[in-house]
């Protein structure tokens, strides 16, 4: 999509949001290496254009479902970064009060229905959001994000089929980063693009360069507008690449350093977009540098907030399991 057709405000939001995700993820990698973040983390570096290109078309009241590699979706949907950073640390002030961690960050107030530790697990939740939207007659959409690996899962097939037969306002976005941990895309499925599967469910399937934020924006815009018009779901495959391992600490024996370097050098979504913004005179180098500076400050504030936040208390282990209190024993302890 030509940049001239997109408002400058939107273009700068896209740039800024990609930068915020990049700075966030690189900082999280450092903190993880320093042992400050427990568990494990799956980082979104290299895939920023997918979340951002899609989310530039969404409103606060729209819904998304995310994945184990979910920080980018959360940030782009407008999730509270202080709350998610504190969650990564396992602190009381976290989005899940320290009970969920990286793979279970959610911000229901902005329609982020949650990351998910189960591959494909969130896909039907977006279908459910779509059903709720339709039955309540709301002008909203739901977007399910998932990876290439998830597109072999039952929830992908069952979820898309349900959304298709019920013509729900749902957009399915497959982030094909070409590796299901170690198994390359060619070894997972016998088709060239996940988008081909749209045909099997009677819905449009579109493949797009996931490193080109404007290309993602354009494809997502069409799919989301189609969904808002009540014309049903679309399957989008965004071909992308993760610049880091599947998780932090992944030895990455399944791909060469040269391959990773090639992608970083030639297909970095932020560098590609930056060049376009500068070439077209939409922003100056100084303006863009200021965006980086602002993002670093924001993330540092979030890190400080997380570090200074208290740990959850022991009593909290047994809290927040159920919503409605009842008679009898609900949370069993011997």
């Amino acid at each position, binding site marked *: 999509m030509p940049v001239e057709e997109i408002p400058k405000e939107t273009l700068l939001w896209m740039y800024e949001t990609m930068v915020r995700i990049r700075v966030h993820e690189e900082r999280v990698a450092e903190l993880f290496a320093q042992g400050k973040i427990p568990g494990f983390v799956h980082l979104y570096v290299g895939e920023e254009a997918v979340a951002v290109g899609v989310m530039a078309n969404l409103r606060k009241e729209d819904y998304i479902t995310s994945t184990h590699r979910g920080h980018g979706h959360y940030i782009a949907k407008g999730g509270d970064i202080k709350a998610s950073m504190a969650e990564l640390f396992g602190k009381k002030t976290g989005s899940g009060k320290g009970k969920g961690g990286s793979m279970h960050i959610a911000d229901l107030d902005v329609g982020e229905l949650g990351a998910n530790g189960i591959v494909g697990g969130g896909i039907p939740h977006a279908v459910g959001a779509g*059903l709720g939207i339709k039955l309540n007659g709301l002008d909203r959409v739901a977007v399910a994000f998932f990876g290439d690996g998830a597109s072999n899962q039952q929830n992908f097939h069952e979820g898309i*089929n349900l959304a298709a037969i019920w013509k729900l306002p749902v957009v399915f976005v497959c982030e094909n980063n070409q590796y299901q941990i170690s198994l390359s895309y060619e070894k997972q499925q016998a088709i060239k693009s996940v988008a081909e599967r749209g045909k099997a469910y009677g819905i449009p399937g579109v493949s797009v360069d996931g490193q080109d934020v404007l290309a993602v924006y354009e494809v997502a815009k069409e799919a989301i507008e189609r969904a808002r018009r009540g014309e049903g779901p679309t399957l989008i495959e965004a071909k992308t690449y993760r610049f880091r391992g599947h998780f932090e600490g992944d030895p990455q024996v399944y791909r060469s350093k040269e391959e990773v370097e090639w992608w970083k050098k030639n297909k970095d979504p932020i560098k590609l977009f930056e060049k376009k913004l500068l070439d077209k005179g939409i922003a100056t180098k100084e303006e863009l540098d200021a965006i980086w500076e602002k993002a670093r400050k924001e993330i540092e504030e979030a890190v400080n907030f997380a570090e200074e936040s208290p740990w959850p208390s022991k009593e909290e282990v047994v809290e927040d399991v159920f919503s409605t209190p*009842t008679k009898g024993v*609900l949370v069993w302890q011997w």
Partner: protein
Amino acid sequence: MAVVREITFAQALNEALDYEMSKDPKVVVMGEDVGLYGGIYGVTAGLYEKYGPERVRDTPIAESGFIGTAVGAAATGLLRPVVELMFIDFLGVAFDQLYNQAGKMRYMFGGKAKISMVLRTTCGAGFSAAAQHSQSLHALFSHVPGLKVVMPSTPYDAKGLLISSIEDDDPVIFIEHKGLYAIKGEVPEEPYSIPLGEADVKREGKEVTIVATAAMVHKSLEVAEKLEKEGISVEVVDPRSIVPLDVDTILNSIKKTGKLVVVDEGYPRASFASDIAALAVSKAFDSLKAPVKIVTPPATPVPFSPALESEWIPSAEKIEKAVREVL
């Protein structure tokens, strides 16, 4: 003036669904053959005609997909889905959406999510439906945290508990024993709710406590009635919900009688029955005057042949034998 009639267990459930759908437009019913067909056991009969195909949704055979859809719809707060899983045995293809998703979201999201949904499903042997259509798998749901598990035994309880379950803001697994659908009982025409976590003493007695669920409540009552003629006084406690569990009523009964028989149609290991036995031993040991007896099927798949199946299901004879052994 309350109008009380005799209706079947299935009709009682139908009334609860009808009432909730008429009261709250967010309540939708989904599942295989629940619409036009009225449900394989007729529980949703008439709802499709009354509320239309948008709110009474027939689904493809895609249990994970449509249960997950219910979870997502509930998470947004836009709907309160009541999903039907035709047989509890089909759980295997959809369990993740219940135990990893519905049951954990609230906790993982720090208490900010409400998953207001009910999964209705059927359990129980006795129909030569064999190993994949006859199980009683409630223990699986009570093993994992975050799910409420309800098992009514009478038409009256079925209506009141289903109304409570639909109005509850947590995921509730509502298990209906197939052998109970046709039984009749007194049910008020008006809506009413029975709180979850409140056991019902179905028969008071002094010498032995039987804790039983679903269809086993009726077999236990049959035994209690027979033994009364011999002057043996048996108390039958129906917990009605497995999660939450009315521990106090169960323990009070054990403390009164000093003797416990647990009767359940679930498999014997890591089961509801062993759970209640452990409860008795750990919380009422001093009151026990005899070893706890457990009556369940053996740890085998449910057999097909009526000759084998009748041996597999806990019978009144086996319950009676257990009661006599603790006397």
